[in-house]
């Protein structure tokens, strides 16, 4: 399942790189890529795991950049 999510308040480019690498490692994620310029997160997730993955991705982002929010 593919989904495009918006990352609000993504201010730091090397943080985006860090987030991308960590979100890719979340269980159930097939691929994850972040566009720093467009403030978007492109997720490909195994069926049925979407909610869980987004929750974890949100934790990852908040840990790296506390103001960063995932919106969809």
């Amino acid at each position, binding site marked *: 399942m593919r989904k495009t999510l918006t990352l609000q308040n993504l201010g730091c480019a090397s943080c985006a790189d860090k987030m991308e690498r960590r979100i890719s490692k979340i269980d159930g994620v097939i691929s994850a*890529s972040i*566009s720093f310029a*467009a403030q978007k997160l492109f997720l490909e997730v195994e069926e049925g795991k979407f909610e869980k993955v987004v929750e974890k991705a949100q934790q990852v982002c908040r840990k790296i950049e506390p103001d960063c929010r995932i919106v969809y």
Partner: protein
Amino acid sequence: MTKRQKIDIAVIIATAIGLFILLIVPVDNSVKIFPYIAIYLLIGYEILFKAGRNIINGEIFDENFLMSIATIGAFAIAEYPEAVSVMLFYRVGEFFQDYVLDKSRKSISKLVDIKQDYANVDVNGELIKKDPHEINVGDIIYVKPGERIPLDGVIVDGSSSVDASALTGESMPKDMTKGDSVLSGCINLSGLLVIKVEKPYTDSNASKILELVEYASAKKARTEKFITRFARIYTPVVVIAAAILAVLPPLLVQDVSFKDWIHRALIFLVVSCPCALVISIPLGFFGGIGRASKRGILVKGGNHLENMALVDTIVFDKTGTLTEGSFEVSQIVPRNSTKEELLRVCAHAESFSNHPITESIIKMYGKEPDTRKARNVEEIAGHGIKAIFEDELVLVGNDKLMQKHGIKYDSVDEVGTVVHAAKGSVYLGYVVVSDKIKPDSKSAVENLKKGGVRNLVLLTGDSEKTAVHVAKEIGISNVYSSLLPQDKVSIVEKLLEGMGKKKTLSFVGDGMNDAPVLMRADVGIAMGALGSDSAIEAADIVIMDDKPSKIPEAIRIAKKTVRIVKQNITIALFVKILVLLLGAFGFANMWAAVFADVGVSIITILNAVRVYKGY
């Protein structure tokens, strides 16, 4: 201005005033330390708080942490004014950095946004604006003059001229009327259009193109990958260097002050922040992708822009790429039959094919061929069609097909595609179908040569005569003709082998049945792909309309993007390394260090903006 920004400005101004007063009041530093701490906390509490929170979260080496250590360090060596002013300048720099970042992101987004965020629907005789997500397939929507079409559909009432420039980059409007299909993203110029929706919002053309462009900005170019990888090691290396600088020299060399070397180490900490290096690079590529999409050129990733900037060989498919691909019968030469009979046989044999050549013959025949009459129809790639028609074997195709079946045929030397026909073992004659060269093919080729493309190649399944004629007309000297589809791949592979390093090959086709070649080339370009999902899927760069002149334009945009991105990397690295060196030898102060961090990132963001402005 947001509330947040207002607070930031207030804090910055208050700190600046406080700092100024403290600097001019003639009181001893030991007394001033308390007011200094107070204004330091005012300007720095947010950074300190974030640093603390991130340490608890296990994130070290982030910008907040580095700035906190650097300024607290300055306090520790009694450089109070410096501690406060460095934090102050950092906040000012961050403020401007966020401002220009936000602004440039918004302007690129505006550049690529072709979505309409409402649709007009009729509710009890009144037009109401509705969220297009809530519109279903089959619903009727109304598009007023001046509005953008929100969803794909068919016009059921009204007529108007429609501007597709947001999709194709071409501003020539098209007249549309009842029965015509319209794509979302186009602008309705003159009359009210009533449209029956055929695709939901998220599957409509505008949403799909926007998503493609945004996704493209997430696919990293080689330069971008390199610099993010560099940034990952840069920060720890500089922080370790700072630690060594603070400790080693005072221990090894006599008569040097601890304070001085700690001060130098603190400068290193400020310069070690990685963001200035990275921030402008993705922005530059997104700018290039956005700029191109505004011109009807979809680039599916920063890496393709990089490859496009290095193009030195371009291989063109002829039909539909450099020529119109709309064929017309130019000669009908019957043998052992009549013109009417020749066309009748061809049209029936070809009634199942939707190849442009066969379509032109059916058009010439003038009647609808009876599809029940042709049986066992077999299309032989690169040869033609074999079928049973009126209980006899019918062959319609090129020389090769005639040879294969031992039919004696006229060897024809004409410009165009020659289609022979035979029924039973009797040769019926031939039809010549020819294609027009696109009006801008010649100027496109000229511009490509001027732009430094070394080798231009034309590939076609057509006869040598036609191929050479077209090639000569537009100025291409390297021609391969009479090719089967698989030959195209092997020619491209051979050309790729002969390529120099740091040079790339691009293949340009119509994306219909050349997917293998598009994939094999360094940059696959599909042309005239508006509304064709399969072509968009297979290509790296998609030209929405069918103009070859967009190719030199794409190269120009690619070169400009890459040039500016490289400038930014050079600027950032140069300033950072310079300040590190000066700092190590005691010639740089903390303000220079702050400049090397946020100052440089502001300069590079503003430079990146040039990618999509002032063309």
